[in-house]
């Protein structure tokens, strides 16, 4: 009995070893989304899964699995604890993950507990007001905010300390107010921010360009500034960056992936090479644009360095904001 069991185990181990030879295409590619279906992590996973298959870089469809909890914290702990050496698995992350890591909200682990693989696209932070708002530019808004800060409730799709709150706090700081004093309304997602703006319940909204751009184009809200290094293509091409309007705020929301700490260098390199190959294909560009993401590519060590730099920067910002 015991012997058969050991034999089975050995056989299984052998099978696993044969099934995933180092550096070859993963036999069971999987992308883990640390949230419910339909959210940003799901979108990130689907981008990799669909584009890799369409561009024929992987032969078998990539499975997308979900593990909800703590805006990715549960998935992060799961990958570190249980699947640290699984070369089949990539896990979706975003700059929001780096922000949470910086605030110590991912449990006991820090940014060095995984291997950061690459980012395939980005969104950018925006500040919006309702279409009938009297403010037409960021400087007008800041001037008015400065004059009477208590009149300006800022809504965002996340808790205090989240990315949307950070965007709002950058506005408050630009207007010379303590971010902690800001009247921040924590709503559930960008959709709720839109309805709160349209219904006149709040004065300013913090959100992401992709989601807000279509409502901007439909004339429902007005995007005052994009937090990007230069103007964005498409529907927001007319909207100046915050920098152009004299406020040095940038907030890229990159969408990327990590793998476990103990994934072999060969597997890591296979994924990194696959991403590098992928971003040059027309199939990928189509999939990225379909998801409302802007061009933003960083793969391998460069990305790893950037995430670490991000976390360090977020630690400073969060401290300044009094978190």
């Amino acid at each position: 009995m015991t012997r058969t069991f050991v034999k089975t185990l050995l056989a299984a181990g052998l099978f696993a070893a044969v099934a995933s030879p180092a550096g070859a295409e993963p036999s069971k590619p999987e992308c883990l989304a640390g949230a419910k279906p339909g959210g940003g992590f799901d979108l990130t996973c689907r981008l990799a899964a669909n584009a890799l298959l369409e561009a024929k870089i992987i032969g078998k469809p990539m499975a997308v699995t979900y593990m909800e909890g703590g805006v990715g914290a549960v998935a992060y702990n799961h990958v570190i604890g249980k699947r640290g050496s699984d070369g089949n698995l990539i896990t979706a992350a975003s700059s929001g993950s780096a922000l949470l890591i910086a605030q110590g909200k991912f449990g006991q682990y820090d940014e060095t507990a995984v291997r950061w693989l690459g980012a395939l696209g980005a969104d950018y932070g925006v500040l919006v007001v309702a279409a009938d708002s009297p403010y037409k530019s960021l400087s007008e808004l800041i001037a008015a905010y400065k004059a009477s800060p208590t009149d300006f409730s800022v809504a965002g799709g996340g808790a205090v300390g989240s990315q949307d709150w950070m965007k709002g706090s950058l506005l408050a700081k630009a207007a010379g107010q303590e971010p902690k004093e800001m009247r921040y309304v924590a709503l559930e997602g960008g959709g709720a921010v839109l309805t709160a703006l349209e219904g006149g319940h709040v004065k300013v909204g913090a959100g992401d360009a992709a989601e807000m751009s279509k409502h901007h184009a439909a004339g429902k809200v007005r995007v005052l500034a994009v937090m990007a290094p230069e103007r964005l293509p498409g529907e927001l091409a007319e909207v100046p960056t915050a920098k152009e309007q004299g406020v040095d705020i940038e907030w890229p929301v990159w969408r990327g992936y990590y793998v476990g700490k103990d994934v072999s260098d060969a597997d890591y390199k296979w994924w990194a090479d696959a991403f590098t190959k992928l971003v040059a294909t027309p199939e990928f560009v189509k999939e990225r644009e379909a998801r409302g993401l802007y061009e933003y590519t960083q793969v391998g060590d460069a990305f790893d360095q950037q995430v670490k730099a991000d976390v360090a920067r977020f630690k400073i910002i969060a401290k300044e904001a009094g978190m």
Partner: protein
Amino acid sequence: MNLDYLWNGFTVALTMQNLLIGLAGCFIGTLVGALPAIGPINGIALLIPIAYTMGLPAESTMILLAAVYCGAEYGGRISSILLNVPGDAGAVMTALDGNPMARQGRAGEALMLSGLSSFVGGVFGAVGLALFAPLLAGLAIGFGPAEYFVLMVFAFATLGSMVGSQPVKTLIGCTLGLMLATVGLDATSGAYRFTFNEPELGDGIEFVVLVIGLFSVSEALLILEHQASGVTVIRELGRMTARLDDIRKSIGATLRGSVIGFIVGVLPGTGASVSSAVSYTTEKRISDTEGTFGKGDVRGLTAPEAANNATACGAFVPMLTLGVPGSGTTAVMLGALMLYNIQPGPMLITERPEVVGGLVASLFIGNVLLLLLNLPLVNIFARVLTVPNWLLVPGILVLSVVGVYSTHASVFSILLMLGIGIIGWLLRKAGFDMAPIILGFVLGHVMEVNLRNALAISGGDISILFQSKISIILWILAGAMAVMPLIAGWRKAKRMKTATS
């Protein structure tokens, strides 16, 4: 008003391929709804990639997904009634009167009545969506944090009707629910409350985990206990068709449930769990003059069942008119639209009328298909009751565990569910109802978040809660709900006085 888009939608939805897709969706949806823990959101998330890789056009995918969504609202009632195990979030209230009916040997009747009220609720919702969607978009926008808070005050005012014969236990249950709702990330301060450094508690206790624990696990334990102590459960199937008398009796309840369900569905911040709760407590307040609610009253069965189906349709209003999802499930459907490179938003109906029209038309067709699918199957569903306990109890437990694991992929959730189940079993033995706990949990969370957001907007000034027309109307309704039973009791006492003198 121009309904051309709808007529075109019917021609889209009535093609052979789309009808078959709709039928398949209805079937999958009923199944997904009937299985505990797996709700429409999971069914839809699984189907999107399949539909996409099959190369279905956008309108066919939407028809498929809408059929699954509606089907799940129908299917949820089956396990609620037969096993006292809610099949999905909207079916929790259905168990309160549906399961007692099944215990009285009226399972077939309960299934048929609830099927009919689901149909009425669904069709009512679809009509409302087709005719008033643009108008209602204004209502959805008018609800800010302050208005949501007062809506919850109204819901709690109707809750008074749940107090019943044991007010202290009801209040304790409700408080337990409120306390459980505080677990997790506090959005207004960014702090974690009662999570004990456990990342899996960061988002709070999942509704599904709580419901499955409180209802199915504790139910399985109760059945086992009865078995062990030699109490035999009578399992009569009874008649398979509803009595005309009962149908007549539930017309009012069904219509009121439909209206409440649709309106709550239109509001982006609330879903089927809130609408079925509000319609049940409201109905109890209005109709429960003889104290029959909770003991198998057909009105207590039909009101929440009509409400959750109307909510499913109502949730499409903000999705189609504003591009903002009205529920978790419609949020996933918005994601599906984006896969087809269709930007959901206010321009959707003018840019892609065939998608909107096909979807709305498929809601009508889907409801008819679901009724046709459900009524003949009542007989088969009801046979679940004849399954012996040695098969039924492990079956319930396996479904619960698999259901929770499949949606959360975490062992922690399973342990939490089992722990909650054991506590629920002890509470039920002590004579507590599970419904107040659920109500406190669902309503308390929405209430707290919106109160704090409203006060964040006003800088702590509570006058914001009385400013808009919507809130004032809701305050008046809440007051009426709270005072009504007092007046009714007073009049009853007066009548008895005059009768005795």
